[in-house]
């Protein structure tokens, strides 16, 4: 594991750049745990102050230090995105592999369900859930619902790989070796599917964060929890751009871009590394 990391860091520029960018974000997230300000508390600092040695990124109109607010926001937003990505990957993986391997009528039935769910509009459903569960709403529930909506496209990708693997000679061989279906799927087919998972996880993460930001901007979030979208919501509510308080909007934007860019580069470089074809080329096949 360590040698793989070392190889990637040394020889792959993208991985290095991505790691640095993501490292910045992670440092911010770590710092959120030692924030001198309590989260969500307003007017703990003088409002509308531009960036200065005391408040590195300035303060907001609500009297919050932008820097420390960012650390909390990044942590929460990232947690949301990661949770959605993990749950929806798992669902997409299971559905795609099983459907592709079984084929025939089972495949058709599963894919019909898949496409139906994919056709559902995301934002209205999330809004509906929000309204229905208003008082018990928490970001975890939101994340779970979002992940239940976000797996359908990727499961088709995984299914197509599984379908092609089903017809390969070594699958037939594995059957005659007495391997059970689950064993075949996990041991033989999974390595081919993992690169897709990685790549789609990246997409999914962006989508999830975008979803969260959108909902927050619209006001459908826990206003006491700092989040990237939330910060932008409040900045809009206080007409920050018009009042000239550019730092309130600029820094969330910069960090969102950094986050996406870092994740993207990491995903690309790891993807290239674990892709079966490049693995085979490295092994000397």
């Amino acid at each position: 594991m360590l040698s793989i990391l070392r190889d990637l860091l040394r020889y792959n520029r993208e991985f290095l750049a991505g790691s640095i960018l993501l490292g910045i974000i992670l440092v911010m997230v770590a710092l959120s745990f030692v924030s001198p300000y309590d989260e969500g508390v307003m007017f703990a600092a003088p409002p509308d102050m531009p960036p200065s040695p005391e408040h590195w990124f300035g303060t907001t109109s609500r009297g919050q230090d932008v820097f420390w607010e960012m650390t909390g926001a990044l942590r929460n937003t990232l947690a949301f995105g990661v949770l959605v990505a993990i749950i929806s990957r798992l669902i997409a993986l299971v559905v795609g592999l099983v459907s592709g391997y079984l084929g025939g009528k089972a495949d058709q039935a599963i894919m019909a369900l898949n496409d139906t769910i994919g056709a559902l509009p995301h934002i209205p459903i999330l809004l509906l859930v929000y309204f229905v569960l208003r008082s018990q709403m928490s970001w975890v529930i939101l994340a779970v619902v979002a992940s239940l909506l976000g797996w359908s496209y990727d499961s088709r990708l995984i299914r197509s790989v599984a379908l092609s693997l089903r017809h390969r000679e070594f699958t037939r061989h594995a059957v005659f070796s007495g391997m059970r279906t689950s064993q075949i799927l996990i041991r033989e087919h999974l390595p081919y599917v993992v690169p897709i998972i990685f790549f789609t996880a990246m997409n999914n993460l962006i989508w999830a964060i975008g979803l969260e930001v959108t909902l927050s901007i619209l006001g459908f979030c826990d206003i006491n929890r700092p989040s990237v979208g939330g910060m932008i919501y409040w900045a809009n509510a206080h007409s920050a751009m018009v009042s000239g308080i550019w730092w309130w909007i600029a820094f969330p934007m910069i960090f969102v871009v950094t986050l996406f860019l870092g994740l993207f580069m990491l995903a690309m470089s790891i993807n290239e590394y674990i892709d079966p074809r490049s693995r085979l080329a490295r092994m000397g096949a």
Partner: protein
Amino acid sequence: MQQAPAGQVAAVMEPMPAQNTLTIERLKAYYINEHYGVKREIRAVDDISLVVRRNEIYGLAGESSSGKTSLIKTLAGAIRPPMRVIDGSVTFNFGGESVDVYRQPDKMRAARWRHLSYIMQGSMNVLNPVRRVKYSFRDFALRHMDKDDFQQRLEAHLLRLQLDPRVLEAFPHQLSGGMRQRLTIALATICEPEFIVADEPTTALDVLVQQDVLALIKEVQQRLQSSVVFVTHDMSVHAAITDRLGIMYAGRLVEEGPTGQMFANPQHPYTAHLIGSLPRIGDLRIRKSLPGRPPALFDPPGGCRFHPRCPLAIERCSRESPEMLPSKTNGRVACHRAGEAEVA
């Protein structure tokens, strides 16, 4: 091959058509793979020199990973990174004009299909499956030929090859594999090229169809008086149509000579093994395979590449790589103990 009749002086100052249509000199082409700090040099073509003459079929034999497909791709100028030519040259002679494949790429491009065509492995799939056959012919050949009488010449060409011109209107999936292969040969020969490269053209075909295809290739070659380099691992096919035969092992040429002599009196132990290990109907004698396997091309054995598996290996073989020297059978052989091999 032409020769002035004895006793007659060549009074007319005509240039003789060049005898050698292809000259390969000390060619080296390697795959250079570099991933994550691991550099691998796969020596697919390692110092090969050979000459192909006009009006002959030169066969290239060898097992898988012998480098024969790499050699074919290299001499046709069809290689891409990570495979590169490291050293040496490939020079064609098209009707008196010489073209160096790697130093004159523009001339080479102009010469393709008109002077040099190829029949690759699995070339049955060369025909575009969603268009009628005639469009494939147009795509490949029209730019080299006169547009006005193209259709006429095409039909005449097919008739000469005993193919019904109505086939042009068909889609590839309506034709059998053998039929597609025959069309591919027609496609490769329509511009009447001086040089044809064929890589396993009959491998996936049924035995009966294979004979038809081989007969077709032979007939075309004789009529056009062209040179053909024919690659296959099937020694019986070499026996059937080639004039000269070259045996490759681990990226090198180990023996070369007239086909009849190669089969009757192989000089290199590997050649002897290749020929001796083939089963024949009616012959129940026990046949054995060589132990071991062909070497990995990124880490070949030192000295003679064949020495770890050679029944005649001596100490010298592991140190010194043998040179290609003239052999007793009117060819060349690279072996310290040439001529001592026994055929089973």
